[in-house]
């Protein structure tokens, strides 16, 4: 039965080959545009550490100007980062299972290997909890412990890429590298780790690469490392030294806490609020109490990782698909009605209404599937084109244009659905045409 339907469908499609190709092309273009748009949107809206969404919290307090909010567009929100002194004070709490404060810096790294020249690195200055909290994969060795944090001990973790540049990719744990003027002992080398979006620090773009090396947080103060992320200040303060800067109301430090359950979270929120109240009593932090713990999803939302443009594009892509569908419905209808005489004959010879509808739907499904496959090819080509044009210069396009199995499945499902939606009415219509009308005139 299915063989027969297929044979009929193929024959019918071949009879009007131009029209059939037009329909397949219409489905394909609609699907391609949707796939490309969905791929980029999906990549943007991914939570790269979704399984810890209810455990990881970005910690913020409203330390901003009494006169105005940190961001006029989101006036109910505190600033995204903390002052150095608040970060240090909040990190002292032992309520969270783990916690860290951190910032981004830069230094030249000298591998001290024959034939390898010094190179520039972005440095994440952070606590050892960074690695277990964000579940970074290690190629060699591991992170550092709290003792190393307290020292601070001269320990360093390299990214996989940095280890390749400095040591040709071999196990470098135990060796030392020079970072600026200081020697650091390598304790770990990360495996490839590219959280996209870069949820843990979204300050300089959502799709930046992770840093090249990681060192304990207290080195920041000891070595007077410059912060190269965002530094925002609301207060006019006399600053004469690095110490003055650390004590200023400028925000430039990020903080995360791992809070395993609701109870811990509530206790921690109370601790943060109490700390802020204490500071208020001392004359600092004049704004209304507004200290927020953001889980990762909320954090990505707060930073508006998914751009407005991409939401607009989703709407336009779906409308485009709708145009393609309407187009196909019209063409199918015309095509089916054109073949009505033949259908009438078949009905007169005993084919039931159901048979006729099924036969026509087979044709529709074929068009839908062919369009889906072709559309997927178009989409792959389109995404490769975007990568070719933009990939070199803008690494985020590299991450945003990766073909995703989820998107592929959704696309194929969509193409089938589109085909069916487009085909149901024409097939029904032809099934309900009285055979007599068509037999009579010919």
């Amino acid at each position: 039965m299915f063989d027969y339907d297929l044979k009929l469908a193929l024959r019918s499609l071949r009879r009007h080959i131009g029209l059939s190709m037009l329909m397949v092309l219409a489905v394909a273009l609609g699907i391609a545009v949707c796939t490309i748009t969905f791929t980029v949107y999906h990549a943007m809206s991914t939570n790269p550490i979704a399984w810890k969404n209810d455990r990881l919290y970005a910690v913020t307090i409203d330390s901003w100007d009494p006169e105005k909010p940190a961001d006029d567009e989101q006036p109910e929100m505190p600033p995204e980062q903390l002052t150095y002194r608040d970060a240090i004070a909040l990190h002292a709490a032992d309520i969270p299972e783990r916690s860290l404060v951190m910032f981004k810096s830069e230094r030249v790294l000298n591998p001290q290997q024959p034939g390898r020249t010094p190179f520039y690195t972005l440095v994440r200055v952070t606590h050892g909890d960074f690695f277990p909290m964000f579940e970074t994969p290690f190629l060699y060795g591991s992170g550092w412990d709290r003792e190393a944090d307290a020292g601070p001990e001269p320990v360093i973790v390299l990214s996989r890429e940095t280890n390749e540049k400095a040591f040709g990719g071999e196990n470098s744990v135990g060796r030392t590298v020079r970072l600026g003027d200081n020697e650091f002992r390598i304790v770990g080398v990360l495996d490839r780790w590219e959280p996209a979006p870069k949820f843990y620090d979204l300050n300089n773009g959502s799709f930046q690469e992770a840093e090249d090396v990681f060192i304990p947080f207290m080195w920041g103060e000891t070595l007077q490392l410059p912060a190269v992320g965002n530094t925002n200040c609301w207060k006019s303060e006399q600053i004469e030294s690095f110490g003055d800067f650390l004590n200023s109301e400028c925000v430039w430090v990020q903080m995360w806490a791992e809070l395993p359950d609701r109870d811990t979270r509530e206790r921690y929120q109370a601790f943060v609020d109490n700390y802020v109240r204490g500071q208020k009593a001392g004359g600092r932090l004049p704004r209304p109490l507004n200290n927020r713990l953001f889980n990762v999803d909320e954090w990505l939302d707060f930073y508006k990782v998914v751009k407005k443009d991409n939401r607009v594009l989703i709407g336009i892509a779906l409308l485009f698909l709708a145009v393609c569908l309407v187009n196909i419905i019209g063409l199918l209808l015309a095509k089916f009605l054109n073949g009505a005489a033949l259908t009438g004959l078949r009905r007169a010879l005993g084919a039931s209404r159901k048979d006729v509808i099924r036969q026509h739907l087979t044709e529709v499904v074929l068009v839908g599937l062919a369009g889906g496959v072709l559309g997927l090819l178009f989409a792959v080509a389109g995404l490769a084109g975007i990568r070719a044009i933009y990939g070199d210069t803008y690494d985020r396009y590299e991450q945003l244009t990766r073909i995703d199995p989820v998107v592929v499945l959704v696309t194929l499902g969509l193409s089938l659905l589109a085909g069916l939606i487009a085909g149901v009415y024409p097939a029904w219509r032809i099934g309900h045409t009285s055979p007599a009308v068509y037999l009579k005139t010919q």
Partner: protein
Amino acid sequence: MELQPIMRALWRNRTGAVLVALQIALALAIVVNSTYIIVQRLEHMGRDPGLDVANLFTVIFAPTGSNFDPEVAMRDDVELLRALPGVVDATRINSIPLSGGGSSTVYYTQPGEKGREALGNYYEVDEHGINTLGVRLVEGRNFDPSIVRRLPDNSSAFVPEVIITRAFAKEMFPDGSAIGQTVYDGLGQPARVVGVLDKMHGAWVDWDKLDNVVLHPVLTSERFAMYLVRAKPGQRDSLMRLAEDKLAAIDNGRIIHKVRSVEELAARSYADDRAMTVYLSVVVGMLLAISALGIFGLAAFNVSTRTKQIGTRRAVGARRFDIVRYFMVENWVITTAGVLVGCVLALVLGYWLSSAFELPRLKLYYLVAGVVVLWAVGLAAALWPARRAARVSPAVATRTV
């Protein structure tokens, strides 16, 4: 005109006609709104930045450690760059305009955070800054070399004089010339305005204060410094390689991290806008093609199913022109209906875009242009099938039983 029989025939086959009209309507809505977005983005990208973007490049370096003597090394580097053949000028600078990274601060017209205030994007340059950037000084003078100095690290020291853009001057000193006026930082430290620039864009291309730029006469500290070089027209790319090689050959305690053209940095800043423009243009192109093909396909199909009817009409005296006119009028009716519905859809979509995404409200002349284009596309697509219909021989009428 045989409008009545056409309408009656259309009514009998209304499903097909309604589908074509609906397709045209949806296409119009998308085409009009997409074009509107495209034009806005093109305007956004096409603004005059006021500096010589095409010929500028930057050299980013990093000190390797305490063996770096900042003043000597940076002075030598800049002198080396200025002496290279093909270089117009070079300066030390704290960040690159249009690059998406920079510094801004609030300036006041009176000490103690009083008077008028405005946010300004500031750049630390020496007396070669204006010539290097390629900005035009329209009032006042350049910095005197003797006042260009280094500020102590981690300090809130201010500068004795500043050069500001016309946009910034207008915001701070709306009445009269800004030259000779004083601006104050948050701590009440004064600086005299000595020059006004015609125009200069700052760091963040989507910032509404992009035109508010202030130049500080400062030898930037090595923590933020990079070099900005202006090449003679056409020599930028070869100079970038030459500069990198020459600088890298000297070991004065720093490495050369990156050499980038300002054009590339600006393109990066505008990448989202460009992507949106390209994407929407492709969608609009495909949409017009699909609509045309759809209309064409349906019209051709209708012609082929009505061969007998056409033959009969020809046999009873209709001229070829009458047949063409019949199909063109039929198509015109469908297209017009589609375009009318499309106008409503376009306005609805435009309203949704402007309210949900804070895009500016759709301008009506875009709608008019869209209507004309789709009308033309609709009629053009029907032309070939209509002419084929006219070629049907009157004999067809007699051929079948």
